[in-house]
């Protein structure tokens, strides 16, 4: 009974936070509401006994996406007067906005309907526990004891490889955006003190999440997001390179996830096994190897997305610093 009340409150908070996020007129407030929405959604995933998804939602959905959106809002020119947030729009633009909103609403409704139909279909078809049973029967051969990691890195490793390829494509797009915007001012003593111990703890936590993913909730995506969070904290504290390596090393880190994945798959192919069909004795080590590379790539991708372009290279740094000094003198 009390859990039912809790679930009801949770559902109500999710829907009302989503509504408030969409209808808020202040972009910054909207982003903050979105982050709260992500955290409550993570609790909901926890209630659905999906701690892996809850971790990913809290770290990537609420944390990093929130930081990304806040950085985007910061990058936009803000009106000087608080009353003048709404510049009068042109009549034609307003019409386009209404049509666009209607289209997005209809598409979202269609998507929600399709998902609901698929879910109903999955539950009504017998027997609906076919996949879970297949996973638990073959878990021993997968090299890990966490079924989520077994699916992501072994049974459906193709999907994860393609996901990493999508991330690589995205980061190439970010690289095409030229230099990142100049960073933040150096932090004061209080924030700097926090950064000094928080960043090492975050790095340690990323390693822990990566390792624990083999037998408990965790894995490359959660670990990568935690590592990227350390970089975000560093950037907010005014360290412009945010721990990313320079030059070729950065490119290697960016491509490591897809590269190691492909290398493992192709080597297995040469040894006469199916592509990404790990021998059970080696599966655990191979999964850890791939996940380590994937974590580094995911962290670099998320961090580069937060930077919004290539990080300053050491040669350009001096010039950029000079430019910033000129701006601050004005």
């Amino acid at each position, binding site marked *: 009974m009390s859990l039912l009340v809790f679930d009801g409150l949770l559902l109500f908070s999710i829907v009302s936070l989503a509504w408030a996020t969409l209808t808020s007129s202040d972009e910054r407030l909207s982003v903050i509401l979105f982050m709260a929405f992500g955290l409550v959604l993570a609790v909901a995933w926890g209630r659905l006994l999906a701690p892996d998804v809850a971790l990913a939602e809290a770290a990537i959905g609420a944390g990093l996406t929130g930081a990304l959106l806040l950085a985007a809002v910061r990058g936009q020119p803000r009106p000087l007067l608080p009353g003048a947030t709404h510049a009068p729009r042109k009549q034609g633009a307003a019409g386009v906005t209404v049509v666009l909103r209607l289209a997005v609403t209809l598409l979202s409704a269609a998507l929600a309907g399709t998902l609901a139909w698929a879910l109903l279909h999955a539950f009504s078809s017998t027997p609906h526990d076919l996949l879970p049973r297949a996973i638990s029967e073959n878990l021993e051969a997968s090299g890990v004891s966490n079924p989520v990691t077994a699916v992501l890195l072994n049974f459906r490793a193709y999907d994860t490889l393609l996901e990493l390829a999508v991330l690589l494509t995205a980061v190439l797009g970010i690289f095409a955006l030229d230099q990142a915007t100049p960073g933040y001012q150096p932090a*004061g003593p*209080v*924030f700097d*003190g*926090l950064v000094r*111990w*928080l960043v090492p*703890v975050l790095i340690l936590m990323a390693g822990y999440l990566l390792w624990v993913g083999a037998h408990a909730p965790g894995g490359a995506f959660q670990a990568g997001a935690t590592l990227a969070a350390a970089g975000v904290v560093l950037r907010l504290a005014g360290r412009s390179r945010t721990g990313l390596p320079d030059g070729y090393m950065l490119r290697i880190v960016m491509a490591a996830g897809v590269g190691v994945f492909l290398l493992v798959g192709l080597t297995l192919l040469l040894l006469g096994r199916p592509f990404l069909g790990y021998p059970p004795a080696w599966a655990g080590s191979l999964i850890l190897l791939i996940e380590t590379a994937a974590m580094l790539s995911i962290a670099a991708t998320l961090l580069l997305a937060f930077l919004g372009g290539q990080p300053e290279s050491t040669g350009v740094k001096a010039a950029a610093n000079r430019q910033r000094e000129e701006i601050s003198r004005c």
Partner: protein
Amino acid sequence: MIDILSSILILAGVFFYLAGSIGLLRLPDLYSRLHALTKADNLGLGLLIAGLTLHSPELLTILKLLLIWLAVLAASATSAHLIARQARRQETGA
């Protein structure tokens, strides 16, 4: 015995959360709201975690819970400081 003690601690934690939230809604200006929110919530979380550690079977779980409390303490103290400093700067126009 442990159940009663842990329930008392958790209820006390919830009380401080409630007080902090009421303070956030009712207090007149930003500084007092920040004060109410961060101080009361830090204490509330501490009591909540103290209550939960009594139920934890493993030392590792207890250490993780304590790490969460320490991280939230440091983060909320720092963010309260940053928000208050920014507000102060905007007020003085510096």
